[in-house]
């Protein structure tokens, strides 16, 4: 690895120096949201201290500065995921809003009664419910591609679902509950052979790997800023320009219009057509700062380091008697979901918290996944580039000790 220094990276994240219940924080809830480097925090302070005004509005200096910063963040996002142009980058609240946007614009315009939408059995609720709502509105049918016990998509079963009625496939790139990385290129290839567009939910994948939307050839890609070391309240919808051009707008308001009279309104061009109202200016600017920070480290370096962390954590976890890993896909990101014999995940969560360790205990907004494994919930340790093997040792010692206490 070229110059990847986890200790140096840790210094960039002020919160990692916090003590929780008098113990050093071990933050392993990165799949829920990850912590912010100083550069991101500073960018917000700097914007509000020196450059802030509304964007795309006034001719005054601050509005110009703010607009420049806002639009340069769009270019950073474009470069980060290798989109063809800035017009393909729509700023939204987060991955959830992006999926709802596609469902309510592209979906309503193109998906009709009897048509089919395919998702997988490992989706987050945010990639289930918007489609259920669309199906309710249009009479379309939601089809669910099954997974196996390792937590992998059963590709042959997925392929069987494709037919002339399939109008859209919406699949998670990397599962938040299981860590599974889906064979998205294969899925997109099969879908495009039938002219079916594909949306990838990249909320989990984006902080862990290089994402190149041209190479993937996906039609839509969505993610949230806060899982990419950026702030909450901002996310991205990438869409191929031709698709976005043809879609009706999502919300009406300022910024998304070119001309308004009381009899008719002419919509603005891309990307503004989908950005009604004053956007999260500071959020977008700070997301740009997060991307700069990650680009300097290199996504391939992050991926390689996290693969090492996951392998180490998996090996240690398998050595603990009574621990069962939920999600053992061959192709997997840095997430370790597990259950313990006779100890509920909520108790695991509280016990580990008393040791300064933050994990997630619950259904991870993926209740169908919990049903599939017949567990009410799981405990989930999810790793980021600033985690260390020492922290994994602390986690595993904690688990071993709490098993003893519960006896």
């Amino acid at each position, binding site marked *: 690895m070229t110059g990847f220094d986890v200790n140096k990276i840790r210094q960039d994240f002020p919160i990692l120096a916090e003590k929780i219940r008098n113990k050093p924080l071990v933050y392993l809830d990165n799949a829920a949201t990850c912590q912010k480097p100083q550069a991101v925090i500073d960018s917000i302070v700097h914007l509000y201290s020196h450059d802030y005004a509304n964007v795309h509005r006034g001719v005054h200096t601050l509005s110009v500065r703010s607009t420049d910063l806002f639009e340069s963040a769009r270019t950073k996002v474009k470069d980060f995921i290798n989109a063809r142009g800035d017009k393909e980058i729509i700023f939204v609240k987060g991955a959830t809003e992006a999926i709802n946007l596609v469902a309510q614009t592209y979906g309503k315009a193109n998906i009709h009664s009897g048509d089919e939408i395919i998702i997988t059995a490992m989706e987050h609720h945010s990639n289930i419910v918007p489609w259920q709502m669309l199906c309710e509105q249009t009479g379309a049918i939601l089809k669910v591609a099954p997974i196996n016990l390792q937590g992998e998509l059963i590709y042959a079963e997925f392929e069987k679902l494709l037919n002339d009625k399939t109008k859209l496939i919406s699949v998670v790139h990397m599962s938040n509950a299981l860590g599974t990385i889906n064979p998205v290129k294969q899925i997109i290839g099969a879908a495009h052979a039938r002219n079916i567009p594909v949306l990838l939910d990249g909320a989990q994948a984006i902080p862990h790997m290089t994402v190149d939307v041209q190479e993937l050839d996906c039609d839509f890609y969505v993610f949230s800023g806060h899982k990419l070391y950026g702030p909450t309240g901002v996310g991205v919808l990438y869409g191929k320009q031709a698709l976005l051009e043809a879609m009706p707008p999502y919300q009406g308001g300022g910024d998304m219009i070119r001309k308004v009279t009381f009899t008719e309104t002419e919509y603005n061009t891309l990307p503004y057509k989908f950005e009604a109202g004053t956007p999260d200016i500071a959020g977008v600017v700070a997301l740009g700062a997060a991307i700069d920070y990650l680009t300097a480290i290199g996504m391939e370096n992050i991926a390689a380091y996290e693969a090492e962390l996951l392998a180490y954590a998996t090996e240690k976890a398998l050595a603990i008697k009574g621990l069962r890993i939920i999600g053992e896909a061959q192709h997997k990101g840095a997430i370790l979901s597990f259950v313990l014999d006779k*100890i509920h995940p*909520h*108790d695991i969560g509280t016990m580990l918290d008393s040791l300064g360790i933050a994990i997630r205990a619950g259904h991870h907004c993926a209740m169908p996944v*919990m049903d599939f494994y017949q567990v*009410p919930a799981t405990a989930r340790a999810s790793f980021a580039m600033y985690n260390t093997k020492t922290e994994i040792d602390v986690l595993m010692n*904690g688990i071993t000790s*709490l098993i003893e206490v519960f006896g």
Partner: protein
Amino acid sequence: MFDDLRDLYQEVIFDHNRNPRNFRVMDNADRKVEGFNPLCGDRLTLFLKMNGDVIEEASFQGSGCAISTASVSLMTEIIQGKTEAEAKQLFKKFHEMTTGKDEHFNLEAIGKLAVLAGVREYPARVKCATLAWHTLDAALKNEQQSISTE
């Protein structure tokens, strides 16, 4: 190692978690209500056998964390033989204790249930302790549908 948690996880709680009391389906129950905490997936079914307004028997089934299992287990013990009014009064007291609004709450007045007072310090876990009691409340109101803490 877990010294900080002694108030929350008292030995009585571990005991009820390992060996829950009245853990069975009651075939001839007069009241049967399902309680669900969607946040953590805790799920329990409470069965009551009534004799007039006296709770003659109480039992439960379900799966949950140690706090919720101990809470429902203790509750089924304590409400047997109580009238509906007495049980409702206990619920009120239990609720006051777990939400911790009254700093001068008299723990002695609530007997065995005092072992659950520790949840006051853990807002994320209060619902684990109160699920059983919300379910009981619904059962006493003779609400047959399932209830949820959310």
